[in-house]
């Protein structure tokens, strides 16, 4: 098998995650989908590092994880406070950007 399939898999997961972000209303699920996308990217990175036989790809993936962790922390905090204020975790309820 050609390891390129990993990349195909990563692309597939990424697409699924993106679609999920667009489809779901529940902020938490949206977040999960984002995580999914990040993971897909990580998979791609790892595969790349395997291709080129150096570790930079893995480093990037590592950093991605760190950043993802930070992002999740903040994002979930936001969701919680949002829930506190408007008693709902639906992203559609926070439509204050409307003119």
């Amino acid at each position, binding site marked *: 098998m050609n390891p390129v399939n990993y990349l195909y898999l990563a692309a597939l997961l990424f697409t699924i995650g993106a679609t999920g972000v*667009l489809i779901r209303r529940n902020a938490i699920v949206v977040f999960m989908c984002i995580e999914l996308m990040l993971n897909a990217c990580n998979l791609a990175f790892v595969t790349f590092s395997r291709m080129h036989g150096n570790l930079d790809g893995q480093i990037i993936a590592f950093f991605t994880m760190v950043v993802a962790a930070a992002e999740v922390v*903040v994002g979930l905090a936001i969701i919680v406070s949002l829930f506190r204020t408007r008693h709902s975790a639906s992203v559609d309820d926070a439509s204050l950007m409307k003119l």
Partner: protein
Amino acid sequence: MTTPLAAYTTSTGEAFQFWVLGTIAVIGALCTVFMKRAVHSALCLAGTMIVLAVFYLANGAYFLGVVQIVVYTGAIMMLFLFVVMLVGVTAADSLKETIKGQRWLALLCGAGFGVLLFAGIGNASLKEFSGAGRANTNGNVEGLAALIFTKYVFAFEITGALLITAAVGAMVLTHRERTERAKTQRELSEQRVREGTNVPPLPAPGVYARHNAVDIAGLLPDGTPSELTVSKTLRERGQLRDVSTEALNDLRALEQRAEERLERTAIEPETFKRPEEASK
């Protein structure tokens, strides 16, 4: 599967593993998207992540594989679960689309994007693979460490700062500032008396012996549920179970059986409203 050296093509073992686990991963991802309840989504996602961790290992990224399992599946997903609990486990949000055309657009974009990515990868002509072996010649972790603390040291420090900032930020966001001192029990009771509103302690939920779960509102004499008897959180989540109607139905059934037992003619419901007629 932990082949130290991945060449142009991989071993059939890995291929087998890829096809099996890959399917699982995709299914998990789909479930993440389409599960009604956040908890289920979270679990599916966790599964996908574990699969990915395995793939990392397969690709010779041992450190990342472990980290994936520990950090992601262990920490982050748990964080997710906590929040889900906070928001309400049982809250099942409908997948019905409210924004017109959103879903179709989303699927269209998604499909289009996917196709493009596949096309991109397809004609990228990725032929030669030097394999993870050369990268891991003197140990994967050592290699990573060498890189992180030499080449990427600044990025590393900055991400560290980022993490701390994020932690602080999370605290700031979730921490609710108290403007005034919290009221003591005594003060609360005094206030209740002063205002004259529910002077005695709040009624307990589930006044009927059959229903004493916390999420069931106690019934008032007229059979309507009283919000007061249930805890605020549940109320806000809208997770009250209303049993007033079934209570009444049970009551009626009971009456019915009593009548039959006493060989009386079946009574139309209106006799409830005219007891004097029932007495003859």
